[in-house]
């Protein structure tokens, strides 16, 4: 159980590292958010689950935290991405079907 727990903890930590690196390396804010969110959410799930395995008493509470973070993290990222889009951050895209929804009234 302990070893399994630590494996999860390690995986989680690695995804955290990956998330941070992605945040750093990706070229624009949307890509950064993508990398960051995916990696840290999985990282959280793995790390916290690992700790739950290491401390079975805490498991329920930890699952709650996992649920909480798994909901808030993507919602936060989406919100931020939308905000970034609206605030006209430079976007390096070929195709943009979002314009009609969000910036429709801005085009003059």
């Amino acid at each position, binding site marked *: 159980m302990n070893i399994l727990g630590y494996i999860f*903890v390690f995986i989680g930590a690695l995804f955290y590292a990956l*998330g941070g690196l992605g945040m750093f390396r990706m070229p624009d*804010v949307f890509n950064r958010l993508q990398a960051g969110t995916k990696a*840290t959410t999985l990282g959280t799930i793995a790390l916290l689950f690992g700790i739950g395995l290491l401390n079975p008493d805490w498991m329920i509470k930890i699952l709650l935290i996992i649920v909480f973070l798994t909901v808030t993290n993507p919602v936060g990222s989406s*919100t931020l991405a939308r905000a970034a889009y*609206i*605030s006209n951050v430079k976007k390096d895209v070929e195709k943009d079907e979002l314009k009609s929804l969000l910036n429709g009234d801005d085009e003059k």
Partner: protein
Amino acid sequence: MTDIIVFAIIGFGAFFSILRLIMGPTVADRAAALDTMNVIITGLIVFLAHIFENSLYLDIAIVYGALSFLETVVVSRYLEANKK
């Protein structure tokens, strides 16, 4: 020993998000970096609970997570409100 390594790896992730936080270049970038960093820190607090063998840190983690989410939303709404 394991704990230290885990710590170091998490720290690695936090470090790069802080780097992005400093470098920007836009407010959105910084907010994204901060958001990522906050998630990492939340995880870190849970990990600390394990290290100190004290479940009280779990409550702190929830509070921290909630407040960091709030922060992301506030920044987002601010960005939207101040579109150029």
